[in-house]
């Protein structure tokens, strides 16, 4: 017997649960930049809380909370270069906000108005895609186009732990590996695929190791550590742009919420688990670090909270002032020219609601 191949999976963390640096602070992590990331996380949480209230009062439809996972999305959004392409799933509010999408647009989308997907950010990012597992192949397709066009841009996509059991996920990472595509696959492993726990999802020890089958490297990152997330996703995107090498990053987080507003996690989540996980929560972790650096204090915190609440309130006002669209407009965002069969249906819907 001889060993023909040998693999290992690395785990990355910069700031530990006690807000101490456990590895060298990366170059980007200046106090100013960390405050910038901190603000983005707090804004994300304030927006999130408001969005749930808007769903409970019938202003928007089903909404997936990102509570406790702010570092995952803020870190990703910050790592993206302007010219990169982002392929979101549905928990990516914080990434999109950093890409220039407005909160009002995000609320519009979750209220069922397709205009919300018409981002004013001016990027080539894709709109939200709810179907689980669909994102990886879209990202691989866009990365293929970028490669053919010889553009030095990368594609970043994200899915949940549940999506890694879908065939499309394997198809996407396989083609990315064999074609050498400039794409980074992020798995936000928040331990729950709706009600299915991570341990019931797969017997694999890590989700990152799925990259090995596709012929490229995979790694784990602490999802409650925004510095590590920003650093590892940034490095992977650089490698994609410059070397046309894909990477799979499994970000370990915890879903401190129901799956969506249409779910009730108390029916399946073991009691006490969420409280235990909350001790690792990313906002408090960074705040404590910033306070240790003497660049943050209770009064700056209070001011930030007020700013975020005002900012969200303004966005809600803009969103609320946009008139409800008539039902037939659901036909208007699928085709450049509407096929005849839909022209008739559109007319029928319109006349039924006159």
């Amino acid at each position, binding site marked *: 017997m001889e060993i023909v191949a040998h693999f290992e999976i690395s785990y990355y963390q910069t700031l530990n649960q006690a807000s101490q640096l456990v590895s060298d602070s990366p170059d980007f992590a200046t106090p100013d930049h960390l405050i910038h990331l901190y603000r983005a996380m707090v804004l994300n949480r304030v927006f999130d809380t*408001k969005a749930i*209230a808007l*769903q*409970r*009062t*019938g*202003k928007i*439809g*089903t909404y997936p909370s990102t509570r406790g996972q702010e570092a995952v999305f803020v870190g990703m959004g910050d790592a993206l270069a302007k010219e990169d392409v982002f392929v979101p799933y549905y928990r990516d509010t914080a990434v999109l906000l950093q890409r220039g999408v407005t909160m009002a647009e995000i609320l519009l989308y979750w209220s069922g108005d397709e205009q919300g997907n018409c981002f004013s950010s001016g990027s080539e990012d894709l709109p939200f895609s709810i179907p689980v597992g669909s994102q990886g192949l879209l990202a691989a397709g866009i990365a293929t186009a970028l490669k053919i066009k010889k553009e030095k841009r990368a594609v970043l996509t994200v899915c949940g732990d549940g999506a890694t059991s879908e065939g499309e996920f394997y198809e996407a990472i396989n083609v990315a590996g064999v074609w050498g595509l400039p794409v980074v696959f992020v798995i936000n492993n928040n331990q729950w695929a709706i009600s299915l726990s991570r341990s019931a999802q797969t017997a694999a020890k890590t989700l990152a190791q799925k990259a090995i089958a596709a012929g490229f490297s995979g790694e784990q990152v602490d999802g409650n550590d925004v510095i590590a997330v920003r650093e590892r996703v940034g490095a992977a995107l650089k490698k994609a742009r410059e070397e046309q090498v894909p990477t799979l990053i499994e970000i370990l987080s915890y879903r401190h919420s*129901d799956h969506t*507003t*249409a*779910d*009730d996690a*108390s*029916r399946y989540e073991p009691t006490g688990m969420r409280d235990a996980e909350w001790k690792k929560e990313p906002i408090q972790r960074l705040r404590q670090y910033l306070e240790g650096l003497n660049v943050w204090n209770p009064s700056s915190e209070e001011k930030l909270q007020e700013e975020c609440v005002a900012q969200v309130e303004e966005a809600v006002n803009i969103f609320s002032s946009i008139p409800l669209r008539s*039902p037939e407009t659901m036909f208007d965002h699928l085709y450049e020219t509407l096929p005849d069969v839909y022209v008739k249906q559109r007319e*029928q*819907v319109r006349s*039924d*609601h006159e």
Partner: protein
Amino acid sequence: MSIFYLPDLGEGLAEAEIRAWHVKIGDHVSVDQPLLSVETAKAVVDVPSPTAGRIVKLHGQVGDAIKTHAPLVEFDEEDRGTVVGRLEVGDHVINEKSTAASTLLKEAEKTVKAMPAVRALAKQLNVDLSHVKPTGREGQITAEDVKQATSMQGEVLHGVRLAMMLAMEKSHREVVPVTVFDEADVTAWAGADDITVRLIQAIVAGIKKVPLINAWFDSQTRKLLVQQEIHLGVAMDTTEGLFVPVLRNVEKRSAKELREMINQFKKSVQDRTIAPSDLQGATFTLSNIGSIAGHYSTPIILPPMVSILASGKWRQVVISKGEVSLRLPLSLTFDHRVLTGGEASRFLEALIATLILPSLPEN
């Protein structure tokens, strides 16, 4: 004044049940302050306030099922001010819909087949789809059917009367009823006894003889469950329709206790404070129509119960010159799917034997 309508809290949920109110009439609330907890088919959730203002009306009590898009809370938005000192307010909750009605409504809705566009049209035209006659393929309600329905005159049933209609329809669909008539000679009472209490005591005696009378039957699973305790539904007539409050464990009550329970229910039915739980779980029903007019009737069984007794107006029968006998007419309906005529008759026999006694010893 603004009305907050119950939103769809999940994805296409028809209703939500109120679990707890966190506010009361007169309270000043701020935006996003929790108003109440509700349970949907999917989750228990807190519903926050969409607005700041003073609460002027709460639609529904704990336990009530509220239909999606039905009124939930009314606010006076002019009155947003902070209030110093105690505010005199009533906290009487207005119950506009009984639980029985909404549960049955849910059942009726299951049978409605209509495309989303037709449902939207019906909503817009305020047409209740459960009352629209479908003409489309496979029983589908078409947009035309909905438009047709709006041209019909009349008032759509609601509330207690609608609950009665749905309950009666359900019984008519499921039960195979047979009614046995007889009468009890109660001359010995000398007209002084409490008829309802005597009837209840006689029913208990009858059930002891034939326990199967006091059973629940589930048509779908075909399971018959003889009830060990006797929870008696007593039909009460109101201007709005029929209420059937349930006297628990009548087999253990004294005549005095029974009378107190009846009086209490009469009052709570009259002023509509009766709790939904007091209208559920009956194992046998007594309908006393005799206080108005009518000797005999064919009372309708309310599934999952398997029998019901109606008593009629006294009848005076001349048995010989100068001698009059006082007769209490009795009509017993039993579900012939699960009970035999012999069983029903033996129950009636035991019931009458108890009823004709001059008085019952207190125990």
